């Protein structure tokens, strides 16, 4: 068996409280899972379930209290400083709101060039060609390069964000609610783009969402979180077909009765 792209073992994340405060319950309580090369893992859970904390720990924006993260077999949590900065190119990230994740001051060309420059690339014709290629891979013509994010539609902006995430040819693409800020028709286009990219580039993806329907459509494996615990992890078909946990069944039945919207709006 080849090494999985992402291998997480018993990861615990706890937010720090004051010096004398009672230690809070961990935001992620011993999560373990694997993401095989070229597969998509969907992470589902309501707000406050710990999925965002898990994501931020993988992105090294949050410290992990204990446990292990291995990326392509490498001890990911051991990296520090400039070594970490260099290795960040292995993970591409697409965030929820494309307009907030693209700088309003820069042109699309500058936005796409930024990660390449950060990893030692140089300005010039080759760079221009490379970023134009990235854009066209994401379904946008090269004349978008000189526009700014504010001139794009939500779907176009999200395509730019995906192009940026792919700029450094990462082995893992992390998607944090990539479609929930978009119109339904555009959502489908973005999902199709993602599955095309997965095919053509052999990407592994981590797809975080609270929308079970979306995730069932794109994932090979599924992980359900609630209150910081992983309550279900398995192949998508198995989880959907025979959910082991009552909460998963609840999520699924919401989906079937088209009540997902209500669920999304639930406070949390």
């Amino acid at each position, binding site marked *: 068996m080849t090494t999985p792209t992402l291998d997480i073992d018993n990861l615990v994340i706890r937010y720090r409280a004051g010096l004398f405060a009672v230690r809070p319950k961990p935001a992620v309580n011993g999560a373990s899972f694997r993401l095989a090369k070229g597969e998509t893992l969907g992470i589902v859970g309501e707000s406050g379930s710990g999925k965002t904390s898990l994501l931020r720990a993988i*992105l090294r*924006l949050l410290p992990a209290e204990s446990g292990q993260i291995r990326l392509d077999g490498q001890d990911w949590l051991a990296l520090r400083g400039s070594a970490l*900065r*260099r290795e*960040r*190119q292995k*993970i*591409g*990230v697409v*965030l*929820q*709101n494309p307009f*907030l*994740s*693209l*700088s*309003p*001051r*820069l042109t699309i060309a500058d936005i796409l060039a*930024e*990660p390449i420059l*950060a*990893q030692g690339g140089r300005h010039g014709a080759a760079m221009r060609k490379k970023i134009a290629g990235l854009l066209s891979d994401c379904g946008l013509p090269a004349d978008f390069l000189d526009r700014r994010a504010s001139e794009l539609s939500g779907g176009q902006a999200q395509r730019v*964000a995906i192009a*940026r995430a792919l*700029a*450094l040819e990462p082995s893992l693409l992390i998607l944090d609610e990539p479609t929930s800020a978009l119109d339904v028709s555009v959502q489908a286009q973005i999902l199709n783009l993602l599955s095309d990219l997965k095919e053509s580039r052999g990407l592994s993806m981590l797809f975080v969402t609270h929308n079970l329907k979306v995730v069932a459509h794109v994932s090979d494996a599924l992980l359900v979180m609630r209150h910081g615990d992983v309550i279900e992890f398995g192949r998508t078909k198995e989880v959907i077909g025979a959910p082991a946990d009552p909460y998963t069944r609840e999520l699924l039945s919401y989906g079937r009765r088209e009540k997902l919207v209500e669920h999304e709006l639930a406070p949390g």
Partner: protein
Amino acid sequence: MKKLLQRLGWPGTVALAIVLLFVLVALFAPWIAPYPLQGAGGPNVVAKLSPPSADYWLGTDHLGRDILSRIAYGTRVSLTNGILIVAFSLLIGLPIGLAAGYFGGWVDEALMRGTDVFLAFPALLLAVLMAAALGPGFLNSVIAVAVTWWPWYARLARAEVLVLRGQPYVEAAQLSGVSHWRIILRHILPATGRPLTVQAALDVGPALLTAAALSFLGLGVLPPTADWGQMVDAGRKFFPARWWYSAMPGLTIFVIALAFSVLGDALRERKGGTARASA
């Protein structure tokens, strides 16, 4: 341009015109002043302490120098004083605020508690203490005021950076391996620059007011260089019989301070934004 005037409203427009007028006077003082030699300090004892007249519109001082010319020359000192104070303060405050806001944690704590120490003293008192310790002189008075001034910019910059730091596009840059330096230069600084420079431009008024207060106390520019605060002080001995000596430069200080303050209010109101407690 038209849009700006519309935004300012009529009080703001008048204030802007007054500020620009003072800038012009400062630039062209030798050509505008009716008696450039006296403005530069040359005595004219025959006409000493004459009241306002057709020859001397605002009267003359105890050495017979035309007060209008002295005020015109004093504009140069006062404006450069104000601008230098603000520039020095930005130079210290901006990097400190940027570092505190960007890195957070103990860096933030250390820098901001240090900043608080300076804010704990009444600003003018601290400036007077500093000026007295450094001794009178143009540069010393600039340094003395700047020492009390920079904490405001540090706080303002920090607040701006804190907002930017949480922006997803800044996070996205960090996640693609962009170094802190590049993030600060490309994403943080351009966005904090604008509100901060607007604030700094408006602070030239209060800054030169403080500098004038120092020179009134004899801690600023030394004679024979013309300076408003120092003129008010010199005229005190002849007040109220020769009222114009103190009143004219005093009035000038009042007008320019008011103009800056009105201009600042006009800009702030329309922007609905970044007010700060003024020193």
